[in-house]
Each structure stands twice: as C-alpha cells, then as structure tokens.
C-alpha cells in the first residue's frame, strides 16, 4: 500500500464481532482524497459494519483507523463528525415533519443569547440552508417545506446536502440510491459528482454495479467480513465485479 498521507481515510485490519458472529475479520481499505471510493459486496459481507466503524457508530474490537494519516479513536458518531466525517445513513435520518432547514441544522442549531435565554436564529438557518440547497440539490423545491412532502430523491439530496454542510472533507453514504427511480438516481449521482468536484471525498456502498462503474475511481470488494480485493475502477469491468462479489474469481 502507498504511504498513509495519500489516503483521506484508511482502515487497517478492522475486526468486529457481535456475539458469535464475526462481522469484520481484519478488513483493510483506504480512500484517496477527492475521489469516490466504492464498497461492493453481497448482503452480510460486512459493508455496513465497516462503514459504521468509520462513522463512529461501532467501535472496532481490533484494528486502526487513520484519518489523513493520523490514528483516531471514535467513541461516538459525534467524535467522527468532529474529525470531519459525515455519514448519510441508509434510512437518511431525517425527521419527516420538520422542515428541510430544521433537518439540516438538527442538533447543530445556530443560536444567540445566553443560558436559558438562548434562541435559535431561524432566519439565518433558513438562509444558509437555502444557499446550500439551491447550490447543490437543484431538485429540492424549498427549504421551508417539510421533508415528508419531498420525493425519495429529494430526501436523499437533503441528507447529502446536510452531510456536505457539516463536512467538506469526507462523506460516507450507505446505498444512497437503493430506493430511487432512474431519474432520481441520476440526480443523486450528479449531486455526488458535484460535491466530489468541490473537493469532498466520498465513500459509498452500492449494490448497483453500473453505478459503481459510473461514479467511482476506486472499488473494494468485501466478502464474509474481509476486503478480498481492490482495484482502480477503470481497470475492471462490471462483469468482473459481479464475479468478485459472488466469489467466482479475483482481479488477480
């Protein structure tokens, strides 16, 4: 492997068990800055557990996580977030009945005042959310509408925008287009390209091999808790990826 500083984030020999189930067995991978790095693998391969270790949701039993070449220890998602790692969860973690801007600033509200007399700066939050969303997620109608009135693609765009708002460093996405139609998938992919174009590194889990080929520069294959191989996306074909995931063969 290349030297650590070349990697935005690096997982080294991560191991994680839940009771008797070994979800991760010494899994290692890295993501280069300014790239889309994809993780593919069958259900139960350990993809979600791996990214949950990287986002601070799980603490690995063993192994190291390096961010910009420096070792880090995450006790909670908040720790990861402070290091500049934002996660777009598969269920998006949006409160449906709150507005888009309230969701974007959820638990990071802008306030003024002191102690118990600390009031939220609603207008400022609305404005900032509007600036963010109108620049990134062109398909979202208005930041003052409630999330429940948005389509699946629009929600995804809101969740991704929120992640980017709080970290332009590194964003992890767990199957961002799994529940979307063709047009919305295209919109979300366009959004991902845009944030990568602005310098954000993205780590993405996807079941959609065509999407992996379209979006990513680096791809890792996971099987049974291990990262079994990795390659530059340009060097592999979709068919090879499928063979990899099913265990038929390796990149060699």
């Amino acid at each position: 492997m290349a030297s650590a500083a070349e990697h935005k984030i690096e997982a080294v020999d991560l191991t994680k068990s839940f009771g008797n189930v070994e979800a991760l067995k010494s899994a290692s991978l890295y993501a280069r800055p300014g790239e889309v790095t994809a993780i593919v693998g069958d259900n139960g391969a350990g993809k979600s557990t791996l990214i949950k270790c990287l986002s601070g949701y799980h603490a690995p039993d063993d192994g190291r996580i390096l961010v910009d070449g420096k070792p880090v220890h995450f006790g909670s998602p908040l720790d990861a977030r402070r290091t500049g790692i934002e996660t777009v969860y598969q269920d998006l973690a949006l409160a449906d009945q709150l507005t888009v801007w309230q969701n974007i600033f959820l638990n990071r509200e802008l306030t003024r005042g002191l102690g118990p007399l600390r009031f939220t700066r609603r207008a400022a939050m609305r404005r900032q959310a509007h600036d963010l969303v109108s620049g990134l997620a062109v398909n979202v109608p208005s930041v003052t509408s409630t999330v429940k009135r948005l389509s699946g693609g629009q929600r995804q765009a809101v969740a991704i925008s929120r992640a980017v708002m709080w970290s332009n460093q590194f964003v992890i996405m767990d199957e961002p287009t799994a529940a979307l139609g063709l047009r919305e998938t295209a919109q979300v992919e366009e959004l991902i390209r845009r944030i990568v174009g602005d310098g954000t590194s993205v780590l993405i889990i996807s079941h959609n091999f065509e999407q992996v080929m379209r979006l990513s520069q680096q791809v890792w294959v996971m099987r049974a808790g291990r990262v079994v191989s990795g390659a530059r996306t340009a060097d592999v074909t979709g068919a090879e990826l499928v063979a990899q995931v099913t265990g038929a063969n390796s990149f060699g």
Partner: protein
Amino acid sequence: MTIGTVQETAAEGRPAAKASPWSSRWHRVLRVAALEETWTKATAPTALIVAFVVFSLVAPNFATWHNVNAMLADAAIPVLLAVGMTFAVMLAGIDLSMAATLALASVVFGLGYQAEWGLPVSCLLAVGVGVLVGAANGFFVGRVRIPDMIVTLGTMGVVMGIGLVASRGIPMPIADATLRIIARDSLGPFRWNFVIVLGIGVVLHVVLTHTAIGTHLLAVGDSMDASKAMGIRVPRVKLVGYMIGGALAGISAIFLILYVGSTQPAVNTDYVMKAVAATVLGGTSLFGGRATVWGPMLGAVLLTVVQTGLTMVGVEAFFEPAVVGVIVLAAATLMRGRK
C-alpha cells in the same frame, strides 16, 4: 459547476415571478390551502368560531362580554393541562398522570400554606411536585424505556395514593387575598387568570418554536432513530418534555385552588380526557413530531365554550363526559393516519 447551477435556477425563477407576482402569490395561497397541515391547524379555530356562532344564535345570553370573559377564565385549567399534555403527545407519548399530579400538587400547596410558608413558597411547592412527577415519568419513559401509557398509569396510582395519604382525602380551604384577586379581578378587559395562562402559553410557544430543545422535542417525537443519528440525547429530551407537562399540572393545581377556594385531593380524571381532546383538536399528531402550543390552547377554549353553551341551552351537566369523549373520538378519527 455549482455556480452555473445557481445561475440557471435564478434565471428560471426570476422572470416568472416578475411577470406575474399576482398569479404566483395566488398559487402559493392555493398550495397552502390544499395542504393537510393547513386543515389540521384550522380545525380548532374553525370549530371555535362555528360553536360560538351557533350558541350565540340559540342561547340569548351567550354572546355577552360577561359570558365570554367567564368562559375564558373557566378555560384556564383545561388550557394549561392541554398544553402540558401536548408536550407528552408531541414526543409520541401521553401523560395519564396529569390529573393525579394536579391533585397531589394542590395537597402539597395546602400543606405549605397551612405551615404558613406563604403563597410564593406554596406555589413553588406545587410546581415543584409537578416537575418531580414529570421527571419520574420522563425518566422511566426515556431512560428505562417503558411504554408511556404504563409509566404514567403507574405514576398516576402512586401520586394519587400519596395525595390521599397526605391529605386523608380532606379538602383544605385556602383563603388568600392574592389568589382571590387573580380569580376575580381583571387586567384591562381580561380576568387575571386568563392573562397569566396566556403569558405561560406565549413562553411555551417561544420554547417550542425558537429554541433548540423545542426542535429536538419535535424531532424525537418524529423519529427517534434520526434524532439519535444526529447526536440528540433522546432520554434527556423526553425528560424535558415530561417535566414541562408535570410543571403545567402543578401550575394547574394553583389555578384550581384559586378557582374553588380549597385544595382538591380527589382526582378528577375528566381533566385527562379533556386535555387529550384539546390536544388532538389543536392539530397535535398522536404519532408525535407535530404540535403547536396555540392549537391545543384553542382546543381547550373550544371545549369550554361547548360545555358552557350546552349548559346554557339546558343540557344536563351529566352529559359532559360523553360529549368530550365523542369529541375525542371524532377529532382523532379526523386526524387518523396524518403523520
């Protein structure tokens, strides 16, 4: 890339808005009118106006300032309890212990008053008891994670028992000059107790809409998973919600004492039903996450207006629980599935 997109959006949006500001505004009005949120919010005010007009027509003395003012004063306790209940319901919970808390708070108020600790200390005791019961509710619901119905049913029993034991079930007359002023005198056109309740409502409205904890209460009620993922401490938020509900039950105890002139160790469970009815009428989602403070306040006023109106047209008071029960079911049916 980003800049290009912004310009595109602006170019699309602006000429349309300039060409016909009227039609775009009209469209927005229509769009808002079509939202079910708008209808949910409009339920209580609309029903209030309808009820008022109907009773004004059938009962000759209904639409007098004297009667309106009296109804607003009568509504003080239901309004307070409705707002308190709303803070539990917005968390996708319910607080069945409110009436028992009210009774215990009134008993403790009486004990403090009897010990000649003075009115301010007695009031603080009443509110303190409410906050304490609310904290117990919030602790068991949020931290121990027992379903809200069971928790508040349990605390209801405990609290009711303590109140009966401490008072031997005997009401204690409270004759206090200040309380009498609040009950009978007016500030400008309105009775003092209505003015105070309105003030409490304004404070809680600001808490709900202009503080971080207000947003977190709604977020937790909407989706615990999303709130957790965003790092919100869910048990703490639930604790705060139930404590606000308890505090309002404690304040209601003071208003009950100044209303009837004595402590009330007996639990009036009608209060709970009425509070739930007003909360639902006020557009609060029973699934949590959507609530206002003014909606349930109007809902409680509506219930008081209906109750007074029915009495004035000669319906027996015995019908009241049935009427409130029908309203609960009707309102909940109207709002069903509206998450």
